[in-house]
């Protein structure tokens, strides 16, 4: 078996692709909305108003970094510590956007900027899963899904500020596990066969070793695992019988 070095993906008409992305992201958007409400509640407790939350959600558009930064602020850690924690969590996005480089290639600057800004773990992974299954999916699919996520994230975070008192905790509903389950399904779809075994075992070993030893925290462990697995794949012999 030969490992393909560069794959090209068919992309249909932009409008149809964007609509398909918007539809396919629905179950993930439901999970995002629960987190949005919870973040709005946290932000309200930190004294933020709905305008500040709406601006932050639409322009930062990275849920976990928003949560950790506001949580650090509330803990009295100071602005610098809050910024460092939030950005450290987002460093993995370098790898996320680099790994789908083909969709940003040969586009006007505004499309590259808009596409990069709308790239999140959820629609990135969904697009990759569709490529793995159907051999289709590109810029417009990612954009359609990203716009739905943006609308849901902004709407739910602002609602969370407004209705702060009435919001259930995501964990009590089991909703914290919605993303874990979603990424398990997407991992399964991304498994390309035996050639992935070495890279995946390397990634898993680095993450478990890093976290268990206490040498790195979660956000660095993700980066370490992703880079380590990719490095293995890059150095392994390309004919797949290593």
């Amino acid at each position: 078996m030969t490992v393909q070095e560069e794959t090209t993906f068919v992309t249909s008409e932009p409008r149809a692709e964007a609509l398909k992305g918007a539809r396919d992201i629905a179950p993930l958007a439901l999970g995002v909305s629960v987190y949005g409400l919870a973040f709005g509640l946290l932000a309200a407790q930190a004294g933020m108003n709905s305008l500040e939350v709406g601006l932050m959600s639409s322009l930062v558009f990275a849920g976990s970094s928003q949560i950790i930064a506001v949580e650090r602020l509330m803990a009295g850690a100071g602005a610098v510590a809050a910024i460092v924690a939030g950005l450290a969590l987002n460093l993995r996005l370098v790898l996320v956007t680099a790994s789908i480089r083909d969709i940003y290639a040969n586009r006007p600057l505004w499309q590259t900027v808009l596409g990069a800004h709308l790239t999140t773990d959820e629609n990135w992974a969904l697009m990759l899963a569709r490529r793995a299954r159907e051999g289709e999916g590109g810029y417009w699919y990612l954009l359609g899904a990203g716009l739905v996520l943006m609308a849901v994230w902004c709407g739910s975070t602002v609602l969370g500020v407004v209705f702060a008192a009435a919001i259930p905790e995501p964990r009590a509903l089991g909703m914290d596990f919605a993303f874990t389950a979603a990424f398990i399904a997407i991992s399964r779809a991304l498994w390309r066969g035996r050639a992935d075994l070495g890279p995946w075992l390397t990634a898993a070993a680095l993450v478990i070793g890093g976290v268990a030893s206490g040498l790195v925290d979660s956000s660095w462990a993700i980066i370490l695992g992703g880079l380590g697995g990719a490095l293995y794949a890059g150095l392994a012999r390309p004919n797949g019988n290593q």
Partner: protein
Amino acid sequence: MSETHLVIAALIVGTLTVRLAGAALGQKLPSRGGWARALNALPGCLILSLVIVMLTNGGPKEWLAAALALATAVITKSLPATMAVGVVAIALLRNFA
């Protein structure tokens, strides 16, 4: 500028910079050979790392729910079905087990 506004502004600029840096870096790397193989393997390794970190933050109940979700993913290949089984399983395990 309040502390909150400073954090919001820094996260806006920093996060967009990170996203664009990745897109730009991807264009610079060669499209054949080891670099291409590494970039093609990156998404799967990154998502797997994300899942493992999520699971190391949980305990046996989360691991059991994850196993049920994985079984659902292998059998049905359906994202909504896997999410539904995972959420229902963890809610039942946490409340009744």
